[in-house]
């Protein structure tokens, strides 16, 4: 956990003591109700290794390590709870305020390393703010002296930008419009493409709003990440996904002809590399057959070929159904290099980065226009050698 050992909370952190928390009344009230509602024999544990509360005939009980105090009345329980203010505040916020939707709860805990850091250390770091990245998002969690968290969501590329330099939003649903176009104004059909626009910030969100903002920017990513952590991710591999398709997409099934899966490797390399999509591809050719290309390093998983992949695969199925021929064309070695450079520049989305007068770049516009004028001027420079049949 970054910054966990910093002197974030003054003397508390330096001395290793519990951070000072002014426990909100509603936290104590909620705790009391929760303990009161426990079945006999059940315990409510305030964080891993924290105090364990229970209720029985003789009143409330609190156990800490080997120590156990039983027969407490409500006031006494409040008093004991106040001694563990940070743990109570933590329970209140992460369990009660955050609500019981498991993916949301797990995500909010993940954001502040709650499962691997004890509360004192964590609270010290949260006083300064703890940052985690989710795709291209930087999400900062900070706490106030009541233990209540606020969340800030922005593009990680602008992690260090002053808040005032960014346009501020408060309604998570505003994220829909924000992420519809990239910084060049182009429509983003794939929400997890690494083209998240810049210039905005959700500066002060509550836990539910933070979750909603992230789920709006990257839909269903938290749900699927949570399923994966629970060992319940329902992956649908290439074969089953394509076999499910009907209508104009039904044709894709014909692309799989028991001739290996090289074509699907190409699809994954084309569409699913980290440079194209931030999801980590977990689907393979089928249950038994992995693809030969890497699934990427994304924090959230991709559980099946998406609609962009399916649409592209339909087009490739049609194009790859054509017979290949041998063509003859006369090119200089530099022209061969240039053609490779042009394909590479388009595939990497670099064409806009090539400077107007940089004629040393094969994919420079003037260079491409010269090649077109020379080769394609008034003829097709590709001569079929194995003259295809008349039916073409």
């Amino acid at each position: 956990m970054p910054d966990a050992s910093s002197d974030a909370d003054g003397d508390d952190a330096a001395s290793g003591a519990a951070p000072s928390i002014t426990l909100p009344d509603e936290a104590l009230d909620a705790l009391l109700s929760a303990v009161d509602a426990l079945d006999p024999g059940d315990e409510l544990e305030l964080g891993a290794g924290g105090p364990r509360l229970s209720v029985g005939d003789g009143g409330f009980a609190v156990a800490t390590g080997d120590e156990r105090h039983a027969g407490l009345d409500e006031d006494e329980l409040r008093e004991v709870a106040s001694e563990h203010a940070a743990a109570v505040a933590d329970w209140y916020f992460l369990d009660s305020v955050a609500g019981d939707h498991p993916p949301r709860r797990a995500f909010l805990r993940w954001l502040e390393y709650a499962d691997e850091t004890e509360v004192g250390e964590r609270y010290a770091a949260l006083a300064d703010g703890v940052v985690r990245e989710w795709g291209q998002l930087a999400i900062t969690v900070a706490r106030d002296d009541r233990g209540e968290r606020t969340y800030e969501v922005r593009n990680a590329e602008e992690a260090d930008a002053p808040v005032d330099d960014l346009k501020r939003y408060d309604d998570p649903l505003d994220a829909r419009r924000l992420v519809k176009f990239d910084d060049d104004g182009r429509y983003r059909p794939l929400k997890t493409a690494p083209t998240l626009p810049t210039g905005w910030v959700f500066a002060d969100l509550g836990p539910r709003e933070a979750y909603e903002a992230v789920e709006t920017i990257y839909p269903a990513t938290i749900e699927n990440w949570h399923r994966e952590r629970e060992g319940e991710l329902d992956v649908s591999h290439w074969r089953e996904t394509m076999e499910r398709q009907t209508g104009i997409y039904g044709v894709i099934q014909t692309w799989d002809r028991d001739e290996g899966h090289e074509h699907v490797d190409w699809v994954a390399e084309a569409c699913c590399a980290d440079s194209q999509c931030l999801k980590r591809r977990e689907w393979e050719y089928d249950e038994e057959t992995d693809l030969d290309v890497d699934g990427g390093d994304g924090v959230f998983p991709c559980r099946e070929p998406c609609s962009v992949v399916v649409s592209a695969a339909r087009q490739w199925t049609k194009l790859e159904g054509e017979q290949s021929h041998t063509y003859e064309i006369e090119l200089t070695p530099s022209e061969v290099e240039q053609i490779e450079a042009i394909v590479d520049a388009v595939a990497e989305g670099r064409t806009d980065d090539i400077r107007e007068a940089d004629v040393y770049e094969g994919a420079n516009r003037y260079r491409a226009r010269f090649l077109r004028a020379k080769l394609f001027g008034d003829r097709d420079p590709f001569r079929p050698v194995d003259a295809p049949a008349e039916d073409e």
Partner: protein
Amino acid sequence: MQALVIVAHGSHLNPDSSAPTHDHADTVRAVGGFDEVAVGFWKEEPSLREVLRTVESEEVYVVPLFISEGYFTEEVIPRELRLGGWDPADWESDGLSADSATYVAEDTGQTVHYCGPVGTHEAMTDVIVRRAESVTGDPDVGDGFGLAVVGHGTERNENSAKAIEYHADRVREMDRFDEVRALYMDEDPEVDDLTDFFDADDVVLVPLFIADGYHTQEDIPEDVGLCEDHTEGWDVPELVDDTRVWYAGAVGTEPLMADVVLERAVDAGADVGDALAAVQESTRVATGD
């Protein structure tokens, strides 16, 4: 908890395609009635495959933002939502009368009330009329006006034409407009000959489409003669052969569509309190005074 999930087509190419879906979801959110309101798309995200897991509710009302019953409502949506045991016969529909049927989603275990498409609900007729009011800016429009409801023909889906005729008939029965016609893009009576079908000097043209896109912003305007080329744009009204044509654009963009979405869910058993009345009030055309 109960959730409303609006499902629609969406687009990889047209950024406006999903706009009406989001707008109507916002309208329903604003009036309450559901603990959660979510949207899912065939071509956008959240996908139909994953939209159900984005809501916490155990009880989910799914309303397709589609014009007619057919391939998407009967095959694609139930399959992608993983509605266990789905059978189109459960709707007992004649092509216009699908209301709802209830299933368990196989991946989430949620109870899903799968509703018929908005386009065939009787309340959709009111949206068409409201669209005419919006485009003319006249809450009482009708007298001296013709109304054309336009859609695909039967080429792609026979139920598409049924929906057009159904609403045209219902508007005609209101006896509000001088003339009402159902016209089609790919069969007779064709929208290309719009002005031949009306005596009225003013005709409101309402395309029965969910979102503005290629058909409503390029095809129909050019076919009708509102413009030579869609890039030139057109006026509202635009004079075509001495007839003033009030081109309304996709009916699905009309705010009152949110009412039809709610009606579908209510018909399926959703308890939305007074949300219906609130939506009808909040989407009303201003009278200007």
